């Protein structure tokens, strides 16, 4: 299905903005990229493919996204680190004028203090993107990561 180039660029910009929020320590604005009533999940591929509901992160509203941010900022104890997202070409799987089902591969690299940069998580985004007056926003973002094993902690969202 032919996509309006301008739309592709907008989606492109949304993913770039999303990555920047997480990689440049701007976690506070990460929830703003979602609509109020949204779904965010980080799910092992093993659970996903077997329809097991457990997720590493499950947020059922933008407010729950904000609670994630608060926990990372105020309550969690962890070694300092930085993330770096690389997001592949996305596919628009289905489209109505208002809703886009978009998938894209991603890899998140993690760098801990006194250590080299390593792969933290890789998988695909299964997203539902909607148009809003503020521009494109995520209605759903499901991060299905390959396999199930995680190197110790996954502190920041994917």
């Amino acid at each position, binding site marked *: 299905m032919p996509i309006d180039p301008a739309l592709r660029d907008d989606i492109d910009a949304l993913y770039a903005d999303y990555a920047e929020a997480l990689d440049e320590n701007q976690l506070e604005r990460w929830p703003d990229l979602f609509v109020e009533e949204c779904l965010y999940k980080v799910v092992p591929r093993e659970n996903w493919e077997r329809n097991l*509901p457990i997720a590493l992160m499950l947020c059922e509203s933008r407010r729950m996204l904000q609670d994630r941010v608060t926990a990372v900022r105020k*309550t969690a*104890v962890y*070694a300092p680190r930085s993330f770096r997202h690389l997001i592949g070409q996305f596919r628009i799987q289905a489209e109505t004028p208002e809703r886009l089902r978009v998938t894209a591969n991603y890899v998140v690299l993690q760098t801990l203090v006194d250590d080299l940069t390593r792969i933290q998580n890789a998988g695909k985004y299964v997203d539902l993107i909607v148009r809003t007056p503020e521009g494109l926003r995520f209605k759903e973002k499901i991060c299905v990561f390959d396999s199930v094993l995680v190197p*110790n902690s*996954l502190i920041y969202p994917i």
Partner: protein
Amino acid sequence: MDDSAPRLQPETDGRRWPEGGLARVPYWIYTDPGIYRAEQERIFCGRSWAYVALEAEVPKPGDFIRTYVGEKPVVVVRDLEGGINVLLNRCAHRGVEFCQNAPGNAREFMCPYHQWTYDLRGNLLAVPFRRGVRRQGGMPEDFQLEEHGLTRFKVARRHGAIFASLAEEMPSFEDYLGPTMLKYFDRVFDGRSLTVLGYMRQRIEANWKLMFENIKDPYHASLLHVFLVSFGLFRADQPSAVEMDESGMHSALVSMRGEQQATEGTAEMKSFRADFKLADPRLLDPVREFPGNATVVMQTIWPNLIVQQQSNTLAMRQLVTRGPTKFDLMWTFFGYENDPPEMRQRRIRQANLMGPSGFVSVDDGEIMEFSQHGIEAFPRDQGVVEMGGRDVRNENHMVTEAAIRGFYRHYRAVMGL
């Protein structure tokens, strides 16, 4: 196993447990490869019931999964009679880890290398070309299929949980737990059928014993876990208890939920944040579901299991060792088959507290690596374990490291240290 190789000795060469007995833990037990090898033999392959799976993971005849006992790969399979078998995932011919694709359902296991075939109880059924081809080759006349089956574990099952042992003689699982621990075990495993909600797994760069220390240590929970504390999910000043079996190898931490308010106890908790609020409170609306007042029971079962009941989130946390300074923590979240939808959703939602991204568990995973870093460079030093005294005793409070002392009392006996 044969005796072509002498029994491994822990490399305790000339090492003595430090003065101070139960109140001290030497740092060399967290890094020494010889200690690790001895642990594999004496603890995980020794007189212990190691957790391997839930029956709900292999409901139908032929269902199987892969897992580990210590570092040893095993297959858990339900046979056609409904029995549970735990088999070493290692072909009797030349050692191939034959089962790679799991979970699955099978009538028999075939090793891919030479297609030796085993039944679901590990008996060797067939060896291709055993009689040769055109009367040439084949196995010796005196080759007995019976002598070449898969190594099979003893199996204990209770209310849906499966445990395995390689020891010649083992007490029943019930005697192994003892009455007190069995009571806590049966509290969650009360006979209702279970349903698996999903898995999490994390690789932690630390010695496996640090995980048990962490869970047997109620003292830390009310200090490290700001999230727990701030929401009164776990606090030193709440009615609580630390209980063990006679040997000290198992233990249970019990706590009742308090209110989110400053109290005597919180005064000493720098991490307490009375102001802390959730934007979406659905994350924390636990409902009482078990008899008694306990809202949290964390039970550790020697040598590789933690049974987690925190509010309405239930999980088996299985330890898989990966060498002296690494282990995998495998989380199996479950509920009850007859859970109403809201309860099921509550369990799923509360899983946000647990695992590699858990509002609470993150702290523990990170702390264990901080400990390993702090410890590794100092084999000759030792930890101090004196909170709540220097002995091993059940307590009606949280301000103690007694369960850690109990754990190491048993550990030293088993390891000969």
